[in-house]
């Protein structure tokens, strides 16, 4: 009994402590990327940092070593304990974090899913900041490749994992575009390969594509690891003029291939702007200046007007950015 009272006192003390911190301090935001050492998320972190510099919020980032489904959970719990106001996270699993998110939100922490959503589990987070209008990724990639191969010939897709939710949405849209739009009638999707976002597997899968489909004209790889591996294989096999590679990649990862002509163009969005937008949104919601509900419009300096859509989804930009020889020198991320 005495022990229980002691525990109660300890817990109470901690609550008081975090409560006091909340009243006095600026909004505190923590961003938890999928894993550490991933350059893509470094850009998002940079966006958060710059956003918080102008807004005056406290920003920290912590990351697990691996992108395994459960690796982020202890970090979220620790942030709740630290009394952080906003946890922004790029979730490693669409559902394994549900319980800990519920608990965080029960304690007043705002949960923002950044860079990808949690399909089917939207009720467990407060809002999702997505990089781009995902319905445009598929058609846009098909057009980028079509332009390079004269809208004709066999093409293949090299994706991440068979169940990667974002990639599967985009691939479905690619298929639909290829089928419905007469412009692409002569482009034939021969297969979809999965490189599991692993450099080695992506490499052997691409090599198998080249071996299995000697008439292949192009590869679309809507994942940063995949597109780099595909480009490397095509370069090694000296088939850059025969097989065009397009996809989603980061400029630093792809610069070499653009400069030596292996890849003509690829696409992405701005992870930096995602971080920036998320920081503004988080502070606004916490301050009460931004209402987290469909239809709210708010302004982010440098990004213009942004709308909160259905299910509290916010898209950072409408169209994808295309990188090629002309503009790649302007980007460093």
């Amino acid at each position: 009994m005495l022990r229980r009272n002691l525990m109660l006192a300890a817990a109470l003390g901690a609550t008081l402590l975090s409560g006091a911190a909340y009243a006095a301090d600026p909004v505190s935001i923590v961003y938890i990327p999928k894993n550490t050492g991933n350059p893509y998320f470094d850009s998002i972190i940079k966006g958060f940092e710059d956003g918080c510099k102008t807004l005056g919020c406290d920003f920290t980032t912590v990351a697990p070593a691996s992108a395994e489904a459960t690796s982020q959970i202890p970090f979220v719990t620790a942030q709740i304990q630290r009394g952080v106001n906003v946890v922004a996270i790029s979730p490693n699993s669409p559902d394994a974090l549900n319980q800990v998110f519920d608990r965080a939100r029960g304690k007043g922490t705002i949960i923002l899913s950044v860079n990808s959503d949690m399909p089917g589990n939207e009720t467990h987070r407060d809002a999702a900041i997505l990089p781009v209008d995902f319905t445009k990724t598929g058609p846009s990639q098909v057009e980028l490749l079509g332009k390079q191969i004269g809208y004709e010939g066999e093409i293949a897709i090299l994706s991440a994992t068979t169940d990667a939710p974002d990639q599967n949405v985009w691939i479905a849209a690619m298929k639909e575009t290829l089928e419905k739009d007469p412009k692409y009638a002569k482009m034939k999707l021969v297969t979809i390969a999965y490189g599991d976002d692993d450099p080695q597997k992506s490499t052997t899968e691409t090599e198998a594509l080249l071996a299995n489909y000697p008439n292949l004209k192009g590869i679309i790889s809507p994942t940063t690891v995949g597109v780099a591996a595909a480009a490397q294989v095509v370069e090694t096999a000296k088939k850059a003029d025969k097989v065009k590679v397009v996809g989603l990649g980061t400029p630093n990862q792809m610069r070499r291939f653009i400069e030596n002509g292996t890849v003509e163009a690829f696409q992405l969005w701005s992870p930096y702007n995602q971080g920036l937008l998320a920081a503004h949104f988080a502070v606004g919601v916490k301050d009460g200046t931004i209402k987290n509900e469909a239809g709210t419009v708010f302004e982010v300096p440098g990004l213009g007007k942004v709308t909160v859509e259905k299910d509290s989804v916010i898209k950072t930009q409408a169209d994808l950015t295309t990188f090629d020889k002309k503009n790649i020198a302007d980007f460093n991320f």
Partner: protein
Amino acid sequence: MSAISRLFRAREAGILVMLVLFVAVVSLIQPRFFSTETLRIVLLAVPLILVAAMGQMMVLVARHVDLSIGSILGFSAIAAGMIFRDHPEWPLYIGFAVGVLSGAALGFVNGLVVTLFKLPSIIVTLGTLSLYRGLLFILSGSKQIDPNDIPEPLIRMAQTSPIDIPWIVIIAFGVAFATWLFLTHSQIGRQIYAIGSNPTAAPLRGIRVMPVTILVFTLSGALAGLAGLIYAARFGYVNPGITGVGFEFTVIAAVVIGGVSINGGVGSVLGTVLGVLLLGSVQVALPILGVSGFWQNAIYGGIILIALVIDRTVRQGGLRGLLARGGA
């Protein structure tokens, strides 16, 4: 002696038969597999495994195991990559030296801890697996080495050479040849076998077990470091969280398939090379056959266990002997 050499030969012949059978079966199912193009892909896939497998083979022969080679590979690749990135004007061989030497240093630490404190290598290297990965994150500041920072000449080593066989393939088979020379034609090489066959008797025969064991771990580390450079050449970038993760299992699988006994004292370069080629062929065949990549690990695990059972069966004079003894 002749009986032993016959056994050796039988062992390697067995692996060769497995390799030929595998290629034949896959080619029957998918005729495209039997082509020079596939051969090229297999040859490109094996150098990474082959170089590290030579080190791991020596470790196993000395009756130890090194689980940290994946982290050593990552560490060396990052260390060399940072030299390339921060000092692009320095010649390529400095990066190579840094990669190989840092690998050797980490391997030396493994060997030192194992021998000095007389600890089981599997637990020590399980610890350094985590330790070295942590150190490489710290060293790199969790930053990836981008393709831009990998020197062109290094990347071309994975693509071509004056005789049109990529340099990394030549290096890998060169390393295998050197290992063969070392193990069969040097005194230390033979001592490694002696230590593995009977660690307690080795000192009585005048073998200094500790330095030789440390040397074996150092060589394994150095070769994992060299594999790190091959990784950088082949994949064109180095990521602190991805490069080398899980690599140890692939290498151990290759070595065990190659007939190297986990009980020490037994193993040959030829067998290991064949084991690596078999594993490389499996790796390449799966996507060509259209088998989901999800099967890869299960197949590796299955192959290791089968190789273990075969190894045990051979040593106990066939299945009957095994069961007879098992019933005792």
